[in-house]
C-alpha cells in the first residue's frame, strides 16, 4: 500500500484477504427499537427510519416491537419453504455451471429474505422489476423450476429463445419483468410502470430491486426523482450486500449516510431494514405498499444484507475479501433465523426442517432431470438458429428475411460438407 497522503479520499474496504473481518462500520440497532409511523405519516415522522435499522427478530428468536407483521405460522412456513427452495435451486444451478452444463450462474445465498419476504408482502397483481439476484421472487410468484432451468440452459424450451444470459428470466403472466444485464435500468422503468398504473387509476403498484453498487448509475437517481415528482406507487429496493464484485459499498454510498437516506433527500421515506430478518423485510414492504396504494407515493428501502456467494460463477471473492468474512456477519442467515423463530414458536422442528430440505432437493432434482431432456447449450434438443431473426420487430423486415435465408444457406452448406466428409 502506498503511503502517499493527499486530500483525495479513497474509501477503504474494512478488510481484505488476510485481514480480520470487521463489520464495526455497520450501524446496528436492537430488534424492536425502531418506531413504526403510520404509512400515511408525513416525511418528517419517517426520517429516523433512514438511519436506524428496522429489526423484528430478536436474539431470542422472538418477534418484537411495532414492526412485527404478526404473520400466521403457515405464512412463516411458506416463507421458509420459498427461501429454502431458492437456496437449494441456487446450489444446484451453481454446480451445474461447474459441471459445464451452462455458462454462467448467479447465486443469492444469504439474501433470500430480501426477495421472498418482499414478494410475499405484495399482491400477485403488483408488477415486479427484479435485478439478477432476486430469484426468490420467481419462487414466490410460482415460476416453474423447470422453466427457470430451461432459461439457464438456453435450451429448446428457453423462454428467452436462447437470447439472454442465464438468470435473465421474465414472465408476463406472473408479472415479473425481464431482467437486464445492464445495471439499474429496471429502476426507472418500474417507476414508469407505476406512473401508468396511477394514470389509469389502477390499484396495482410496482416494486424494483438493485444492488448497492448499482445505485451509482444515473438510472437510480432518475428513478427516485421521477417517483417522487409524480408520487408514483412504487417501492424502490436497494439490496446493500456490501460488495459490488470486488468494490466495497462505500464506493457507491460515499458515506457516512445510508443508502436509505437518499430517500428523504428526494422527499420520500427511506427505510433501512435488516435484510436477513424475514419479518422485518415483510413488514417494511407491507408499510411501503400500503403507502403507495393510498397515493402516498414511493418508498426507498435499503436492505442491509451480505453477499455470501461470489458475485457470479465467474468471480472468486477470496481475491478481494477475507475468506471467512461471512462468519463474522452480525445479521446472521435469513433461513436459520426464520427457522429458529418458528421453532421458538413451537411451530417447527429439526425433523421438519430436514424433511423440507429433502423435499426441496427432490423438487429441484426432478425439475433438473426434466429440463435436461430439453437440451443444454451443447447437447440434446437445440433451438432453431433461424429464430434469432424473430422478435427484432413484430414483423420480419425484408433485410432480416434476407439474412435469415443467408444463414439457412450457410448452415445447409456446412451440413453438406460435413456429410461428404463422413462418406
Amino acid at each position, binding site marked *: 500500500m502506498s503511503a502517499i497522503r493527499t486530500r483525495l479520499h479513497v474509501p477503504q474496504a474494512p478488510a481484505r484477504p488476510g485481514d480480520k473481518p470487521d463489520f464495526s462500520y455497520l450501524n446496528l440497532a436492537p430488534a424492536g427499537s425502531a418506531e413504526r409511523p403510520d404509512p400515511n405519516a408525513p416525511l418528517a415522522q419517517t426520517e429516523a427510519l433512514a438511519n436506524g435499522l428496522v429489526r423484528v427478530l430478536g436474539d431470542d428468536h422472538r418477534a418484537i416491537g411495532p414492526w412485527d407483521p404478526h404473520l400466521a405460522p403457515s405464512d412463516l412456513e411458506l416463507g421458509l419453504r420459498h427461501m429454502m427452495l431458492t437456496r437449494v435451486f441456487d446450489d444446484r444451478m451453481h454446480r451445474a455451471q461447474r459441471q459445464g452444463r451452462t455458462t454462467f450462474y448467479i447465486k443469492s445465498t444469504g439474501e433470500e429474505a430480501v426477495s421472498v419476504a418482499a414478494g410475499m408482502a405484495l399482491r400477485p397483481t403488483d408488477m415486479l422489476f427484479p435485478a439478477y439476484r432476486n430469484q426468490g421472487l420467481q419462487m414466490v410468484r410460482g415460476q416453474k423450476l423447470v422453466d427457470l432451468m430451461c432459461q439457464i440452459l438456453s435450451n429448446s424450451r428457453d423462454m428467452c429463445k436462447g437470447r439472454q444470459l442465464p438468470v435473465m428470466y421474465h414472465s*408476463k403472466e406472473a408479472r415479473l419483468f425481464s431482467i437486464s444485464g445492464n445495471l439499474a435500468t429496471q429502476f426507472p*422503468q418500474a417507476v414508469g410502470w407505476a406512473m401508468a398504473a396511477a*394514470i389509469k387509476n389502477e390499484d396495482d403498484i410496482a416494486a424494483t430491486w438493485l444492488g448497492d453498487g448499482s445505485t451509482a448509475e444515473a438510472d437510480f437517481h432518475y428513478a427516485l426523482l421521477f417517483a417522487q415528482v409524480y408520487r408514483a406507487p412504487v417501492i424502490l429496493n436497494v439490496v446493500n450486500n456490501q460488495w459490488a464484485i470486488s468494490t466495497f459499498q462505500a464506493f457507491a454510498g460515499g458515506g457516512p449516510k445510508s443508502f436509505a437516506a437518499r430517500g428523504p433527500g428526494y422527499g420520500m421515506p427511506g427505510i433501512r431494514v435488516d435484510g436477513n430478518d424475514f419479518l422485518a423485510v415483510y413488514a417494511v414492504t407491507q408499510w411501503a405498499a400500503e403507502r403507495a396504494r393510498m397515493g402516498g407515493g414511493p418508498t426507498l428501502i435499503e436492505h442491509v444484507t451480505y453477499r455470501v456467494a461470489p458475485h457470479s460463477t465467474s468471480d472468486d471473492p477470496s481475491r478481494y475479501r477475507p475468506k471467512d468474512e461471512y462468519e463474522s456477519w452480525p445479521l446472521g442467515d435469513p433461513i436459520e433465523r426464520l427457522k429458529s423463530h418458528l421453532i421458538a414458536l413451537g411451530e417447527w422442528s429439526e425433523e421438519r426442517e430436514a424433511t423440507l430440505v429433502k423435499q426441496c432437493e427432490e423438487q429441484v432434482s426432478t425439475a433438473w432431470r426434466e429440463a435436461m431432456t430439453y437440451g443444454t447449450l451443447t447437447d440434446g434438443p437445440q433451438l432453431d438458429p433461424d429464430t434469432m431473426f424473430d422478435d427484432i420487430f413484430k414483423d420480419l423486415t425484408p433485410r432480416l428475411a434476407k439474412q435469415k435465408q443467408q444463414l439457412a444457406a450457410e448452415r445447409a452448406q456446412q451440413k453438406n460438407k460435413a456429410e461428404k466428409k463422413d462418406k
Partner: protein
Amino acid sequence: MTQMNMIQALNSAMDVMMGRDASVVTMGEDVGYFGGVFRVTDGLQRKYGQHRVLDSPIAEGGIVATAIGMSVNGLRPVAEIQFADYIYPAYDQIVSELARIRYRTGGEFNAPVTIRTPCGGGIRGGQTHSQSPEALFAHVCGIKVVMPSNPYDAKGLLISSIEDDDPVVFFEPKRLYNGPFDGDPNKPAVAWSSHPKGDVPDGHYRVTIGSAEIVRPGKQVTVITYGTMVHVCIAAAESLGIDAEVIDIRTIVPLDEETIVRSVKKTGRCVVAHEATRFAGFGAEILATIQEECFWHLEAPIQRVAGWDTPYPHAFEWEYFPGQARVAAALKATMEAK
C-alpha cells in the same frame, strides 16, 4: 384538408391519436403547460389533462426509462426529447432496453414507445442544437428510425409510429418546421402554404413506415436523401437543369431498398445526401447497399454529400451545411464521369 406547417401537422397527429386512443400519453421537457419549445404539443394539456400530457424533469434517461415502463403497463407513450443533441443520456435506455425488450423476452413483452426529437441545423443552434444523430440509432437493431421532410408525411408517419407495436425514434428536421428550405439562408423564408405537402388532412391517416417516396421523378441520376436535404437536392437539380430522380427515403429503419435499387438501376448514376457528418453516416449504408445490388448498372462512382466530419460550428453554420453548391458539385461529378 387544412394548410399546416410541420409543427401544426405534428400537433394534429398527436391530437388525433390522443383523441382516438386513451392509452396515448406524452411527456417531455416543457411539453405540458407551455406546449413544447417548438409548440408541437401546444394545447394538448388543456385538452387532455395533466395526466396525459406531462411536463417532465430535465432527465432524458428518466423520460425514456419511464416511457418504457408505461408502455409495458399498456400505455403508448410519446416521449419528447427537446433536441436530438440531448438524447445521449437516454442512449442506454434506448439501445439496451427499448430496442431489446421484445427480443430478449422472446416476444412476450413489447415496448411501443415513440421518441420524438427535433434534429438538424440551420437555426443557428451551434454544435449542441443542430445534430443529426440518426446513424447512431440506425445501427441498433430493434428500433425503427423515421425522418419526415414535410407536413403531410410528418403527420402520417407520426400516427403510424404511435400505432406501431415497436419502438420508433422520430426525427423532426427543425429547419423544416415552418417551411421548406432549399439551403439558401439568404433567401426570404418560404411558407408550407406554398407547398403541396402543406395540405394536410384534418383526421386520421397513415404514411407507411418503411416506404420511400420519389418526390421528383427523373431519368439521368438518382438522388437519395431525407429530411432537410430533400428540398436542397431538388433545388440543386433544378438549378442545374439535370433530370434527377429524387428519392425521400422518409424511413431510415426499415429502409425501402426496393425503391432505391429500382431507381438506380434505371438511371445508373447516384448521389446520396444527408446533413449528418459524413464518416460512417447513414449514407455509407445506402452506398453499400447500392454497390451490392446495382454494381453492374452503375455508369459512374456514387457521390456522397454530407456535413463535414466536424461538430456543427455556431459561426460557420453555412460552411458546414451541405447546401446547393455541394450537392451541385456531386451531381456534376457523377454526370461527367464516363
